[in-house]
């Protein structure tokens, strides 16, 4: 130790000597601003600093030695600022090196030194010059003071002396504190400096003084300095400084206002009257200092003092804390929490008057320390505060004050966790929330919209991929920021968790009971809230539920149901019902979609989704009623509704069908179809064709077979509403889907011409001539084989024939006789058989069963009828459909022909239409007809040509000078003429139709006519194409082009 000290001696000695040269200069020679002096001081300081850093502890003797030149320096008249700074640093080092161990600090020296240091830092009481000094000077001051305080604390702790017990030292103490506070308050840009000042004060209060009585004298100054600092506008004060200040603030208050130290007793009401009085003025302090405890010591901190100063503190904090909360800085908030927590821990009684403030701050911060709530009074205060916030919830919503809402949520959570939340409050909040939110929405939406929504048509929707989700999330509540929406749902979630099982049932059913005056927004908001509340309540229930089980035994075994997983809350079903009701209400009013009704539907969908998630497996049984409204919304004209319908559908599919919407639809297609049929029966056709199309595609033809009765309804609707173009078009689009599915099921879809499969029937009217392949020959030979081929299709007929039906026939006749008076009504038990026996002689060749074939005939029948409709689009639609149906009908040739004869005239008429778009499809359809029916239409085809020549506007364009080929025409027959695209397309299909007719009828047509036709074809089609169709055509073409 000694050796180290001697090394230290040797190290500082040259510097001391060097310094002495300056310091001992006579006063008149001494230059207080001498650079040499400064350097001397600095080199000494450097050396000491190194020593200090090495962690060496030296004896006071060392200090004495070093102090020799310093002392003489201090005797000089003045000293420059930098020199003083260096000097202070040297002193600082000496304090830590030599006087900081127990007993090493001489009391007298300490007294002198402290006064000296304070003087050196600031030589006037008002510290006017202090702040003009450089920050590094001020920093040095802070550090030296801190070191001194630390040294005093050590001395005090070791029992050698208590520096500030001596009243002589109090002025310096006061001065030093003002120095530090001024530094703290005056250097907003010098964070380190401010922190150093705070640290010094911290050491002083906590370690050195740690005596409430002394500190209580300087508390006012501190409080005002702190408040002044913390109240500086904006972000002037660095957060770190703020935090440290707060910590220091807490320390000082905790020491001065310590409940324990002050012997504060709370005055608890002893009778009812007092209790009532107290209730009237709940925030008045009813505390007293039990002064008897102090044994007649004369005290500064008596009850009067407490009353006066605590009010000041409250006032100061009232200014400071809320302002700091507004800064919304994480570390500041944390510091605030600690502050409140510390104060409540140590000074709960004496600073009772601040409790309310603390609560409101803590609520804002979403951190209510346990210390606050521990007492009855605390919880009561908290409740009042929350209640107060709750009453202002409409403001919060009006101004979209998310923070306020979050505070309410936090308050509720806290109250709930301390089990002092009553349900009236929750209920009250729920209902005021409901009215506020719905009013707000109504206002917002009235203010900003014209009310009506832009709708998108059905085909747009089918055009989009019906079932793929557009991923972008959409806000639920219209015209409200998503943040507010999110906050509201969180608040609801919290509210929900606060409910008991029975209680929520009541609340939700009250929410969902609408009187007539409820607006669309009101209903929707109620539903949305209910769903959210229930969801939250369902999440908590299991635990809450078990408690009753533990304490109660039930005689009847009704409770055994509890062995099953927990039953869902009954009200979930009420929510589902309301959701469906809301959606239906909108969908059934066919008026234009408004914002409130859109919102209603969207909320309905969302609630269904929430409930499906809440109910889990229990939801499966509800799909019966729920799925249709949801799926129906997938075809809604509103994109928002579609979006939520998609998310809901997807969520259901995820829960029950592994994410496959296809499976979801397929598995519930019976319910969907039934719902559609109910709708159709009520003549509500909106969206129905679209939905059926989707279902047909999903379910395939096997499904379609099972809802033939729905198709019958559609046919009936066509009977009645054929005037509505859109409706008819949509229905025919549906028929097209059905026909496609049927074709897919019964005919190989890749087979372009299914007619070729008809190997067993020879359709020619000259049969057996006209056989085309060996199979047909075999077929003729093997007549008995026919029966077996399509056995199942007419099995029932066979069985009828096998019956010894004599008696039955006899009876049929009898019943006929009996009924002959009544108009020709059917005879119930027999008709089915009599009609089917009419077919007994028919052979069924078609791979399409009779029932489905019948459906095709029905479709074509309606097509025929509606081809007279003025709508162009409908005509095109029907003709296209017919072109597809006729090849399918051709699979049963003899059944095709009557239909061909029925449809022929109207289609021919349409092929003469001046609208080429219609003429084109009509020609295509005729071509199919001719192709399917073969020579059956020979006569008609020939007549058709006559009609075309006479009336066709199309032909008029192609051959304005008549269709008879002339000599002059030959030269330009080599290549087709040029036409506008639409005309050209129509002409091409006309020509193709003519070619098909020529191929089918060949020699039945006169050559002149064929020449005319081919001439027309050559105007449109290339020669090679025409030639290639048949030998006859080849001949004609070469004849014409010769």
């Amino acid at each position, binding site marked *: 130790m000694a050796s180290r000290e001697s090394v230290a001696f040797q190290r500082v000695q040259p510097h001391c000597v060097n310094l002495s040269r300056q310091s001992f200069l006579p006063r008149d020679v001494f230059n207080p601003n001498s650079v040499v002096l400064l350097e001397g001081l600095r080199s000494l300081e450097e050396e000491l600093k190194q020593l200090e850093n090495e962690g060496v502890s030296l004896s006071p003797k060392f200090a004495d030695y070093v102090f020799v030149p310093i002392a003489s320096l201090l005797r000089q008249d003045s000293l420059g600022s930098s020199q003083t700074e260096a000097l202070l640093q040297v002193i600082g080092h000496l304090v830590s090196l030599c006087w900081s161990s127990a007993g090493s600090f001489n009391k007298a020296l300490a007294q002198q030194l402290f006064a000296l240091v304070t003087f050196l830092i600031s030589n006037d009481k008002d510290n006017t010059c202090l702040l003009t000094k450089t920050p590094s000077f001020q920093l040095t001051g802070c550090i030296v003071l801190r070191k001194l305080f630390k040294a005093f604390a050590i001395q005090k702790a070791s029992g050698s002396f208590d520096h500030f017990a001596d009243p002589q030292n109090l002025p310096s103490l006061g001065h030093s504190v003002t120095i530090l506070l001024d530094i703290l308050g005056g250097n907003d840009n010098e964070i380190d400096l401010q922190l150093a000042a705070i640290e010094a004060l911290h050491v002083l209060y906590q370690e050195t003084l740690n005596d409430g009585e002394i500190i209580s004298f300087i508390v006012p100054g501190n409080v005002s300095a702190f408040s002044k600092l913390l109240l500086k506008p904006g972000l002037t004060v660095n957060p770190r400084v703020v935090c440290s200040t707060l910590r220091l603030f807490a320390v000082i208050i905790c020491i001065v206002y310590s409940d324990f130290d002050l012997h504060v007793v709370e005055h608890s009401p002893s009778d009812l009257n007092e209790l009532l009085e107290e209730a009237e003025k709940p925030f008045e302090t009813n505390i007293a200092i039990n002064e008897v405890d102090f044994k007649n010591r004369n005290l500064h901190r008596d009850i009067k003092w407490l009353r006066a100063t605590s009010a000041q503190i409250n006032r100061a904090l009232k200014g400071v804390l809320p302002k700091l909360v507004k800064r919304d800085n994480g570390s500041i908030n944390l510091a605030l929490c600690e502050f409140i927590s510390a104060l409540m821990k140590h000074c709960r009684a004496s600073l009772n008057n601040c409790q309310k403030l603390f609560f409101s701050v803590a609520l804002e911060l979403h951190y209510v320390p346990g210390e606050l709530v521990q007492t009855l009074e605390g919880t009561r205060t908290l409740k009042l505060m929350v209640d107060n916030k709750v009453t202002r919830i409409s403001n919060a919503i009006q101004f979209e004050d998310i923070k306020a809402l979050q505070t309410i949520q936090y308050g509720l959570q806290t109250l709930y966790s301390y089990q002092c939340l009553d349900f009236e409050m929750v209920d009250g909040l729920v209902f005021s929330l409901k009215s506020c939110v719905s009013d707000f929405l109504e206002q917002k939406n009235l203010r900003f919209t014209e009310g009506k929504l832009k709708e998108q048509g059905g085909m747009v929707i089918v055009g989009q991929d019906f079932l793929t989700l557009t991923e972008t999330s959409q806000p639920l509540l219209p015209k409200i920021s998503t943040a507010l929406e999110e906050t509201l749902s969180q608040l609801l979630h919290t509210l929900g968790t606060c409910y008991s099982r029975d209680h929520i049932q009541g609340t939700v059913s009250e929410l969902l009971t609408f009187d007539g005056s409820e607006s669309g927004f009101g209903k929707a908001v109620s539903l949305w809230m209910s769903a959210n509340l229930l969801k939250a309540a369902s999440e908590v229930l299991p635990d809450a539920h078990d408690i009753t089980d533990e304490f109660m035994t039930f005689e009847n075994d009704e409770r055994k*149901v509890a062995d*099953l997983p927990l*039953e*869902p809350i009954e009200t979930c*079903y009420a929510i589902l*019902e309301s959701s*469906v*009701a809301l959606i239906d209400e909108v969908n059934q009013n066919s008026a234009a979609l408004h914002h409130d009704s859109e919102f209603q539907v969207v909320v309905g969908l969302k609630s269904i989704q929430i409930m499906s998630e809440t*109910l889990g497996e*229990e*939801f*499966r*049984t*509800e799909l*019966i009623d729920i799925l249709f409204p949801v799926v129906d919304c997938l075809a809604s004209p509103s994109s928002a509704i579609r979006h939520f319908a998609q998310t809901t559908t997807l969520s259901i599919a995820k829960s029950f069908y592994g994410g496959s919407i296809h499976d979801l639809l*397929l*598995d*519930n*297609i*019976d*319910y969907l179809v*039934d719902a559609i049929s*109910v709708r159709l*029966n009520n003549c509500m056709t909106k969206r129905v064709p679209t939905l059926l199309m989707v279902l047909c595609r999903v379910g395939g033809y096997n499904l379609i*077979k*099972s*809802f*033939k*009765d729905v198709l*019958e309804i559609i*046919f*009936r609707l066509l*009977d009645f509403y054929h005037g509505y173009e859109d409706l008819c078009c949509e229905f025919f689009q549906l028929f097209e889907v059905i026909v496609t599915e049927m074709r897919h099921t019964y005919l190989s879809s890749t087979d372009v011409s299914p007619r070729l499969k008809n190997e067993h029937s020879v359709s020619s009217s000259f049969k057996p001539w006209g056989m085309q392949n060996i199979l047909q020959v075999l077929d003729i030979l093997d007549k008995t084989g026919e029966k077996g081929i399509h056995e199942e299709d007419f*099995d*029932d007929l066979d*069985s009828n024939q096998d*019956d010894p039906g004599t*008696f*039955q026939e006899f*009876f049929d006749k009898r019943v006929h006789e*009996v009924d002959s008076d009544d108009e*020709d009504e*059917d005879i*119930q*038990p027999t008709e*089915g058989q009599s*009609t089917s026996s*009419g*077919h007994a002689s*028919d052979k069924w060749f078609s791979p399409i069963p009779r029932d489905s074939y*019948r459906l095709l*005939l*029905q479709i074509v*029948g*309606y097509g025929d*009828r509606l081809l007279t409709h003025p709508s162009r689009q409908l005509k095109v639609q029907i003709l296209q459909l017919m072109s597809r149906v006729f090849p399918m009908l051709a699979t049963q040739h*003899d*059944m095709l*022909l*009557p239909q061909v004869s029925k449809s022929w005239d109207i289609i021919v008429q349409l092929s003469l239409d001046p609208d080429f778009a219609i003429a084109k499809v009509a020609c295509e359809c005729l071509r199919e007809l001719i192709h399917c029916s073969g020579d059956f239409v020979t006569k008609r085809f020939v007549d058709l040509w006559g009609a075309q020549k006479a009336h066709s506007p199309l032909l008029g364009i192609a051959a304005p000078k008549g269709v008879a080929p002339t000599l002059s025409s030959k030269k330009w027959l080599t290549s087709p003429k040029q036409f506008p695209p639409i005309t050209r397309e129509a002409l091409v299909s006309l020509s193709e139709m003519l070619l098909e007719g020529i191929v089918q009828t060949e020699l039945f047509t006169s050559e002149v006519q064929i020449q005319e036709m081919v001439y027309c074809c050559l105007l449109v089609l290339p020669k090679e194409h025409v030639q290639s169709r048949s030998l006859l055509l080849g001949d004609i073409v070469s004849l014409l082009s010769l």
Partner: protein
Amino acid sequence: MQGHQPAAYTLRKHETEVTCLKVVSWEPYPVLASGDAKGELYLWNLVTRRPFAGYKLETKAQIIYIKWLNNYLIVLSKDHTLRFLQLHNETAVAIRGWAGNQFELQSFKIVYEVPVNTLNFANVVVTHMRESQYRLWCCNTMDSESIDVYEFDVKEQRSLRRLVSGINLYKAIIKAGNWSTGESLDKTGIVMCFLEHNGVVYLGYECGFVLGLQLVERSGENPTIVVSYVSSVHYPEPVLSLCYNEREEVILSSSTNDAIGVHALQAHSVNVSESEIAFFSIEEGIAIKRDLTLINKSIHLPTSKIGHLGCVDGRLIAVDWSGRTLVCEKDETKFCFSKQRSNVLVDESSAGTFDQGKAPRCHIKATSMACIGKQTLRELRGIRRGEKRRTELCANRSWCFTGYEDGSVIMQSFET
């Protein structure tokens, strides 16, 4: 779901006309059995409205009559056969009740078969005697105007025993005290329908007579048919349907006119004991009460040609030949529904038909009917709340089921 609004659903599975419907009691809620013209049978869960069991007769014969007795599905079909079917696995049904649309249906196995004359339209009566013994009342094998009674043991394929053979009740009818001989009645005509209630078998005849019969077996003698009730309420129109009205404890009968015969039970609840036999004249195995008189009481409905008649919760449900289903209280129609047919008719014959001149039928024919009243459910144990709720929704309503020629079954609720 929508409060008390009537609900209508359609059960779709049959592809051809639904010829028979029957409500079958089941736990927790009754199910519906349906049969069609091509021999397909289904059992429907009415809560989910989906079939859970099905069977297809190999012969594809039309189903005429279905009855559920002691877990046997007894089916009479146009292939002259009465079959006893049994579910393969009854317990599995309940569990799968809520499964989706796509699961496989439970199937039946044939337990027993009896040949029955089905050249007429009549159903049969099957009653349980003892253990696996059953009694069958049906039309005579050769002559649909007379009846046969058989007994058999379903566990013994060769146990068929004819108790009564070819009984023709023409003579019994004309013996009735107040039958005016001035009316022409030279025969009964064929038996149109059977109904059993409380041991008495009721027969509806083509001539419009309704008879109540009992079978008396005395040891050592041939069994006797006791005619205990005769009514000519529908004469000369044929009896089309019989049903039992639980609330008023009467048997009701329908015909081609608007009259509904009301046949009070007291009038024919005979205690057929030894002593009372003295009051009967017995001839050819037929015992007739000496003072047997015709009891012709009737009410009138606002429709005629009632092919199917049912009665539930005090309401009469009548399905007429024009496809309408009427729910009536007394003679007042409370509710009526039917299915319409589209206007454009399809000519299904390549050769054309002779019906061209006939006005097209604008309705879809109703081919069968069944109904079920409100049910008080027993305590539903082990059933989840959602299911229970749905079942209750069903049980709180009266339903009627009408089968149509297009294969659909309308399930319609109505107010009572």
